[in-house]
């Protein structure tokens, strides 16, 4: 009797209270990030959040390409690097201001996306993945080989103008230390707003009619072609949209750290959106964004602390040299999403094997399973998995 009351209360609770619509989650997320600086966190944390906001735009653009049109690109650093280098070179050689070079960088990225995407449409699956992998490596060798006066050679283009230069704040009467904090804060808000706007646009495209057409191509290309869809046009469009936001992330990154370096084109840079999206869940735009911040906390705060604790334990049980080694090289042991170390990679691999559908998507799916009313909504999210099962019915 009492137990049935409990059960009934629980079911009402889960279906009415935990039934959080995605919009409310987004609103909560937005409010959290808008009001988070009021607690006055350190400039270090704000800087990390800014960096990962940029990486979240990058990851969302990769997710749009694979999750919507099913084209696997292993060389997404191409767009990041082209954006960073274009904007950087324009600033460096012609002295143009930020607001002029970033749109030009983005436009060039769209052009590059067309140039790369057009031949890439002929190839498919693992072939496409490996062909796209080639382009950033080719560009990297070219930039490395050209004389340093054009693209800076090994060091990249340094000394680029950053968002909200420090003079902007010192002129307004802030002290030096306070000005640096205010600069970090302004950059944080700018990147967060840009992330919000770009992810909103990507989400709207992903769930618009165009997005549905793209998913139909992912599901069955021959059938969608037979229904009169110009698949070439749509696949190229997905490439261009993805290139746009990937390039935007590259431009923002270059002007955030002030350097357009070779690391923007490296293999690890292509690897960043892949890890983030895999953890968040492929085919959702919100997944990579949530996973970017999860990864930030994991790589920058949780794992170093855990390793420090482990080092203390090692020293206490007698393995002094190992403990000392751990303690003195914490960053190279753990690493982060941008430069993965040993422990970070092991954790990521375990997460991928345990939650193949991604963390953010598992959470959202669970929230949705709690309420039966919205069960049929957003079924498209499982499409990617379903296609895999169809290929090998064992």
């Amino acid at each position, binding site marked *: 009797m009492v137990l049935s009351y409990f059960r009934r209360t629980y079911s009402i609770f889960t279906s009415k209270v935990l039934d959080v619509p995605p919009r409310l989650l987004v609103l909560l997320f937005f409010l959290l990030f808008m009001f988070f600086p009021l607690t006055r966190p350190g400039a270090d944390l704000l800087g990390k959040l800014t960096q990962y906001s940029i990486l979240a735009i990058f990851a969302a653009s990769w997710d749009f390409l694979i999750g919507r049109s099913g084209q696997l690109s292993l060389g997404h650093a191409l767009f990041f690097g082209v954006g960073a280098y274009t904007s950087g070179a324009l600033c460096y050689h012609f002295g143009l201001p930020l607001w002029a070079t970033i749109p030009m960088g983005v436009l060039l990225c769209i052009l590059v996306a067309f140039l790369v995407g057009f*031949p890439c449409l002929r190839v498919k699956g693992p072939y496409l*993945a490996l*062909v796209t992998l080639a382009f950033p490596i080719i560009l990297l060798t070219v930039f490395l080989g050209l004389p340093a006066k054009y693209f800076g050679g090994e060091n990249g283009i340094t000394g680029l103008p950053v968002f909200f230069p420090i003079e902007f704040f010192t002129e307004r009467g802030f002290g030096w230390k306070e000005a640096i904090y205010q600069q970090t804060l302004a950059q944080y808000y700018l990147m967060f707003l840009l992330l919000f706007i770009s992810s909103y646009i990507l989400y709207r495209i992903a769930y618009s009619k165009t997005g549905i057409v793209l998913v139909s191509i992912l599901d069955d290309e021959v059938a969608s072609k037979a229904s009169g869809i110009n698949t070439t046009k749509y696949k190229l469009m997905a490439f261009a949209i993805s290139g746009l936001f990937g390039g935007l992330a590259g431009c923002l990154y270059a002007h955030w750290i002030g350097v357009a370096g070779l690391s923007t084109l490296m293999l690890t840079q292509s690897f960043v959106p892949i890890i983030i999206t895999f953890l968040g869940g492929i085919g959702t735009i919100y997944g990579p964004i949530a996973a970017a911040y999860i990864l930030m906390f994991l790589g920058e705060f949780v794992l170093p602390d855990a390793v420090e604790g482990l080092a203390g334990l090692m020293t206490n049980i007698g393995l002094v040299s190992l403990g000392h080694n751990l303690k003195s090289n914490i960053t190279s042991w753990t690493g982060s999403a941008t430069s*993965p170390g040993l422990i970070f990679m092991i954790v990521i691999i375990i997460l*991928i*094997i345990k939650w193949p559908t991604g963390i953010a998507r598992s959470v959202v799916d669970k929230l949705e399973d709690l309420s039966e009313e919205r069960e049929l909504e957003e079924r498209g999210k499982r499409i990617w998995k379903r296609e895999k099962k169809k290929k090998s019915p064992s």
Partner: protein
Amino acid sequence: MIAVVAIVIVVAVVLTWWYYLSPAGRVDAFAKIKRFTIYGLLSGGVYALLALGFTLIYGVADVVNMAHGALYMLGAYMFYAFSWKYFQLDPLPAVILAVILVAFIGMITYRLFIHPVIEDIVAVMVVTLGAALIFQQLVILNFTGSNIPIVLLTGSEDILGVSVTYQQILAFVVSLSLIAILWLFIRKSKIGGAMRAVAQDREAAMLMGINTERLYMLTMAISALFAALAGILIASYTVANPRMWTSPLAMSFAIVILGGLGSIKGSLIGAFIIGYAEKFVTIWTGMSYLEGAASLAVMVLILLLRPAGLFGKRLEVER
């Protein structure tokens, strides 16, 4: 058809170029052509060894193994550990022990990383790339990140007026004979037959009583063995360091895609194409940093002409 046209164009260009050269230029060009022929042949043979393991595991298990380059790097380091750092063995037992150890590491990699996610090709790529980074970090921790020397043989010989080290000749001979052994193994032995059966149709092979899991592990071991041997042989005349796995990885992609994923004959021919393309760039332009870019550009060009590589399985309806 395209191949015939391409060969005719190349021959025509070469003959015109030759006709307009001055006598001194002809002597110089002849020396360059000799170097091009011999070095291209030597590097092509070793690249074939590198790429074969990659194409084998894709052809049998549909696994794009991004850790292939890392296994190559581990081969060189295990040889260093056995022959120099820990045991000071003679080269031959050290090579054998190192190769067997890396084959075991390959099997463990398959069991731990690839097996849980084998259904999803993207997840396999991500997880194996992660495994490669883990191997790199482990090697840096154990052997530090600096270059290490790998010595197999010393001395050199003149072949047609081109100086070739014994290490290069050894690498070429060993890789060609191993490729021949693998070819015979796949064609003649019972396990090789099982591999071909699984490559053709996994379900049917399972119904015939083939233990696919064990076969995948064995294939992975063979693939890792080839990678490790290629690592030892190539590192013996270049250098070895923990970050040396990315360029051979890109190289084996280029070769394997050029020839068609999963085709052994294709990757053999692709290896020679890439080897000659690289030597062409280094010998005639003198810019050795363009090597990697040149081979990848050749790969992209060939893929534009034939989307499934030279000998790959024909893809489904396209365009």
